[in-house]
């Protein structure tokens, strides 16, 4: 590991003023420290954000929540206040199904959104893939069972975050603070295209830190679920996941967000599937139509075609669960 210096930040202003290529912010460190140990990252200086109170805590507002960037996945997994439990179900489930208890205690939501790809060519300190400045994506012609089926061009990474998928389904915004001030981006805009020096696929600039995630309050008629499929029952990255948030009014879907994880460099909004549901009742036919539309445009590599089937299965399962949730509520059961 390359030697580095460490300092605790005194204020947010000082942090953003100090950040550059060699000076990076540190929160939970669950990803960054591993990358530093294997030499994939080598910052000269780390500034810990842990001392900045403004980045802590979940604030409940009339129109939603402001989740401080230092909020841990454990906190998100079990929100203290009763009402949030159901309204943010999709997010708390996604957080709960991430990593292991120890990692969730340390990992923050800000860091979670800024994770680097798990692609084994990227993580291998001996290989130089396109993302690390090489001339081609090694997964495209190599071992690619865990790689992207949607939206990939030069690089076939998938974003490893579970909460990001749920946040996209909740239409959340990411608040960034840099030397030039504050900007707020929708999840979709927050994730751009992966490219060298932007390896985690986000548009965050070198001087910026995430200060909060802002989640609008879902309507009273809205419910969400998170379905994660992996190779191991716990403590594994998703092969494919689906975050689905649906609003039902008088027996028909009035709003639907269907977002897939594990399939692209960013949480993947399945717009076509959403379109199939709006205006329909949650019948078997409508659910099937939405599930099979979820992977529209998917292109598989030599080993990852199964993800198409899995993604459709995940959406189907999510819709079934929602059908039961709405069903039991309308009949007064449960």
């Amino acid at each position, binding site marked *: 590991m390359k030697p580095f210096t460490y300092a605790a930040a005194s204020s947010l202003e000082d942090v953003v003023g100090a950040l550059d290529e060699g000076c990076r912010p540190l929160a939970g460190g669950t990803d960054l420290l591993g990358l530093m140990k294997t030499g994939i990252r080598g910052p000269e200086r780390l500034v810990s954000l842990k001392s900045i109170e403004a980045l802590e805590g979940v604030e409940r507002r009339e129109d939603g929540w402001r989740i401080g960037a230092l909020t841990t996945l454990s906190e998100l997994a079990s929100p203290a206040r009763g009402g949030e439990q159901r309204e943010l179900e999709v997010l708390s489930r996604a957080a709960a199904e991430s990593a292991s208890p120890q990692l969730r205690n340390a990992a923050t939501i800000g860091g979670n959104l800024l994770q680097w790809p798990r692609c*084994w060519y990227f993580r291998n300190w001996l290989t130089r893939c396109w993302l690390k400045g090489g001339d081609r994506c090694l997964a495209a012609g190599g071992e690619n069972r865990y790689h992207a089926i949607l939206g990939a061009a030069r690089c076939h990474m998938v974003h490893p975050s579970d909460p990001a998928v749920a946040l996209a389904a909740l239409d959340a915004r990411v608040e960034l603070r840099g030397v030039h001030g504050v900007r707020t981006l929708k999840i979709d805009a927050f994730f751009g295209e992966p490219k060298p020096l932007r390896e985690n696929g986000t548009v965050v600039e070198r001087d910026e830190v995430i200060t909060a995630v802002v989640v609008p309050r879902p309507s009273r008629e809205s419910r969400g679920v998170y379905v994660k499929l992996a*190779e*191991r029952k*716990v403590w*594994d990255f998703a092969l494919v996941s689906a975050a689905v948030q649906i609003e039902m009014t008088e027996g028909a879907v009035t709003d639907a967000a269907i977002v897939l994880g594990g399939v692209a460099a960013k949480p993947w909004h399945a717009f076509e599937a959403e379109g199939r549901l709006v205006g329909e009742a949650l019948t078997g036919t409508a659910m099937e139509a939405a599930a099979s539309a979820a992977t529209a445009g998917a292109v598989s590599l030599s*080993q990852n075609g199964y993800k198409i089937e899995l993604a459709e299965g995940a959406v189907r399962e999510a819709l079934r669960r929602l059908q039961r949730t709405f069903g039991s509520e309308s009949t007064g059961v449960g």
Partner: protein
Amino acid sequence: MTETVGRPWVRADARAKVTGQAKFPGDFGMADMVHAKILFADRPHARVVSIDTSEAAQVEGVVAIFTAQDVPVNEYGLQTADQPVLCGPGSGKPGADVVRFVGDQVALVVADTRAAAEQARGLMEITYEDLPVVSDPFEALKPGAPQIHPGREASELHPELSTEGNFICHHQIRKGDMEAGWAQADVVVEGQYHTPGQEHAYLQPEAGLAYIDDEGRVAVVVAGQWAWEDQRQIAHALDIPVEEIRVIYPAIGGAFGGREDMSVQIVLALAAYRLQRPVKITWTREESIRGHCKRHPMWFRCKWGATREGELVAAEVQVVADGGAYCYTTNKVLGNTTITCTGPYAFPNAKVDVDGVYTNNPPSGAMRGFGAPQGIFAAEMQMNKLAEALGMDPVALRMRNLLQDEMPTTTGTPLAGGVHLQEVTERCALAAGWERAEEGWRKPAAKGVALAGRPKEAMRTGMGMAVGFKNVGFSFGYQENCWLRIELRGEDDIERAIVTIGTADVGQGAHTVLQQMAAEALQVSMERVSLEASDTGTSPGSSGSASASRTTFMAGNAIREAAALALDGWREGERPAVVEHTYLAPETTPLDPDTGEGFPNFAYGYVAQVVEVVVDVETGELRVRRVVCADDVGKAINPEQVEGQIEGGVVQAMGWVTCENFIAQAGRVLTPHLSTYLIPTIADVPERMETIIVEKPDPRGPWGARGMGEMPFLPLAPALLAAVHDATGVWIDEFPLTPERVLRSLRDGGSLLECDWE
């Protein structure tokens, strides 16, 4: 007086381990200690042209840098010394300048701090000339393939070792008359199978401390499985007398065969010897995964025939095993595959060919089951397919063909020590719900399940069974032996019994079991027995390896014989009464190179399992609902530990079959972390686990005990895949059963294995 054998004594090391008092190799330190880091090749096949240490040597705190030219005899290996200690020019050993896999060691950098050693390692300038890489054993056998070890010499000790091309070794069986066999066969089942490699993933990555002890010896504190053999190999490489090396095993954090061959031992000893200072090393998990051997990946082509009534008449099996870059124990592992790949059945006619092949993959070596899990997998897949083809119940077909006392195996001789395959099969089947009706065995009907609200039509349930057997000890002509010393102290009564033995406790609880057996044999209480183990400084004889399910059998017999001698001395008034004794196991023979005839082993263990699974056909996910395991252990010296071994073996086998996926591309490891190499968690283990301890004594086992540490691993893979077939109607002939493989196989109607067998 006391009855210590057969009781669930709490492990002697339990308190120290759960309270953090136990010291593992990485926990040792000494004054004036320096730290070492190994520079790995990180490339699968290359010639080291030159090594420039000048920049690295400038780093502040660097004490020394060792390369090939510093190793007096630059070779080592348990079976054949085909691996350089450090790869590079200048050692005088032909071929030692070539690296053959990514984990080959090129230099040892020693510094005052770990950070300095690491920094200097990064500044080493190595000029490589890359050589063509061969990572597929079928490719490695083709004419014109890159040669991994050209110019090998024949081994007198191990005639099965080959000198030709990339062949490591060959075993074969020719029994009966194949043509006559096929003529009798009404039903023939052909199958191809692939079993993957497996990482040992022990809790404790490789670590050690070497220093000069009070008597001037080079002492190496390390985790291994066979201290005496480590000592021999270190002395050979350093070219100093064996007595000047001392190997000490403290608490060992798991081994599973992965410590049978060496990792840090020789370089540590070399550095301490040269520097006359304590030297410490600790590998990271990545170094461990890249640096030590794996289970042999194997490919099988099988053709079995039976009569309409279900009598097995002929078996033809061809096996290719990827041995990786060095031999390690490949010849021994494949001996076990040779005798297990036709299953525990009486075949009048058999033709078996087994080849081990050098490639540029990480070396394959010992791992729990030692070649038997692979052989049993292919055999039991064949057996379950045969039952289907014959329309017979799988238990009924087995009961008809299982080996029994006095029946010759494919090697022409019966299994030694009493054969209880029918007992374990019957006990397991009955416990799992099979009915033994008048018309024969009847499998219980599958029950549908509703799980966590998943739709019933997507959830398929199934049940499958398999049987396994494995030898105890290495044998195949090797004279198994176990040295120990007993000292009885006291006046009128024995106040203290000191047992000194080399045997390692690799975490399986061996030392507790040895203490129990010593107390029983000497008729004293457990508290009066103390064990001094795992230090070649106190145990000059070899007590053998803690592997091959041999420890209880071998050390137990050594204890029994030595205790009788010591008690004789005690009764004659010797104070203290001291006996040094080596137990010799019954003689065995190697397999005949042409026919495979022989008497390869002196003892065996038997096991049967039934597995119940739920397959989610929409997501490809598996859930193992229940495992029933009946294991003939002869005598459970410590029943609680036996149960622990059974449960641990089942979980480790489940990992191999379901989620562990070691991936190397052209020799480069893509899964060097436990985040990509997924071992099972508590959430993945079977929902129900029923162990049935069968105690059919081996007349030559201590108190009747058989070896048992590996046996529970054996039948799980084929039993699980039979359950998947029962659930879905599809035979999957390879694993791990990731969602990807399950969905693909369901879509294709099975596996589409393609190998270049010519």
